[in-house]
């Protein structure tokens, strides 16, 4: 019923060619066509933050972006944060701080927190909470999430 378009997306440093209908969100294209399932689908309304990715370095909800409308932009998903198969400093800090419970919201949290430290290398706990206000955790383990971001900031600052 719907026409499809051939597009090229720059995802985690690589050009990816895919064929999608215009209504396909970046979230569905990442998880479906590109088999990058680290980005999670929860609310599909831009409320929960589970699908957060970096677009030109800025955190955005992949469920609110159409794949056909983000051609030519630098897209980084949680799979693109680490290098050479290693976890990024932020990912490791989430593990070490015990911030992860069921884990469903974690990729969005980690992507958002990565963008925060790129912009503000030594945030206060209040600034961390404000930056992560759009990332919901239904296990409600927010205290250790904030601990993890502080731990990452300390490690990156050394």
């Amino acid at each position, binding site marked *: 019923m*719907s*026409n499809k*378009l051939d597009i090229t997306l720059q995802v985690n440093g690589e050009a990816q060619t895919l064929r999608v*209908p*215009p*209504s396909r*969100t970046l979230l569905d294209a990442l998880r479906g066509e590109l088999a990058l399932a680290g980005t999670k689908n929860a609310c*599909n*309304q*831009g409320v929960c*933050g589970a699908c*957060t990715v970096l*677009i030109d370095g*800025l*955190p*955005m*909800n992949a*469920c*609110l*972006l*159409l794949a*056909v*409308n983000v051609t030519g932009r630098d897209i980084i998903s949680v799979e693109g944060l680490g290098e050479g198969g290693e976890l990024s400093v932020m990912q490791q800090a989430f593990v070490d701080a015990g911030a992860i419970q069921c884990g469903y919201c974690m990729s969005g949290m980690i992507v*958002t927190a990565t*963008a925060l430290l790129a912009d503000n290398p030594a945030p206060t706990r209040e600034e961390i*909470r*404000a*930056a992560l*206000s*759009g*990332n919901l955790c239904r296990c409600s383990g927010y205290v250790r999430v904030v601990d993890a971001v502080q731990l990452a900031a300390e490690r990156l600052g050394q």
Partner: protein
Amino acid sequence: MEFHQPTSLDAALVLIAADPEAMLLAGGATLVAMMNAELVAPSALVSLRAVPELRTIDVAADGGLRIGAMLSHAALAAEARLDGGNAVVRGAVAQIAHPSVRNIGTLGGAVAHGDPSSDLPAALVAANAVIETAGPAGKREIAAEEFFEDYLTTALQEGEMVSAVLLPAQPEGATGHYEKFARVHGDYATMSVALVLAMTGAECSFVRIALGAAGATPVRVAEAEACLLGSALDADAVAAAGAKLVAASDPVDDVRGSGEYRLMLVPRLLARALTAAQAKSETRS
């Protein structure tokens, strides 16, 4: 569904004129969410992301600003030229939803959506902004106070779009403040007070107030402002102004609060907003 990505405003207008079921895609923070929820199913989308003329900020000779419709809330929250009285707009956009949504949502998209619970409409009415629209018959300029006509209903005609928001040069020494009361960080306002204030000595010499989430459109009451003009913003004057705003408000009952509760917030938030704006004005002088 068709997808178009024109590179000029004129080309975008031709595309939406050709198809009455086509919709303009600004940032997508609201439109894509509505598509995901199957509330809208446009026959075509006309993306505005590649239209450079919608992304500029121009400063007029008198100090007024013309802000392109495609600038994101995050960009405007960091815009230093939104100072003085126009800081009311900066204060509002800085409190729209969350950082990831502010990176997506745009000024023009939020204005065209016309949601009275959202943060921009009241701030734009308080700032006495003018909405610039572009359409088949050319550009129009509509005062924000007239632009928001009803719940999700604006003065936009078929085939028209919001092309820019014009903010006037505010009175000398004016400060702006947006006081938002919400259940949690990033929620829609339960009630909000947007205002531009100027003091001459201890006396209020200029004030313009609009409430958000107080009715189907932003609520502005000239008599409420008259209660404050010439006063020292003493408790009696603020209470009188608050009572006039309450009398003109008709907030909904919903999950964010009953209408009765929201009305109780009005005078309290007004006092907070005036105190905050006055404090900024003392810092500046």
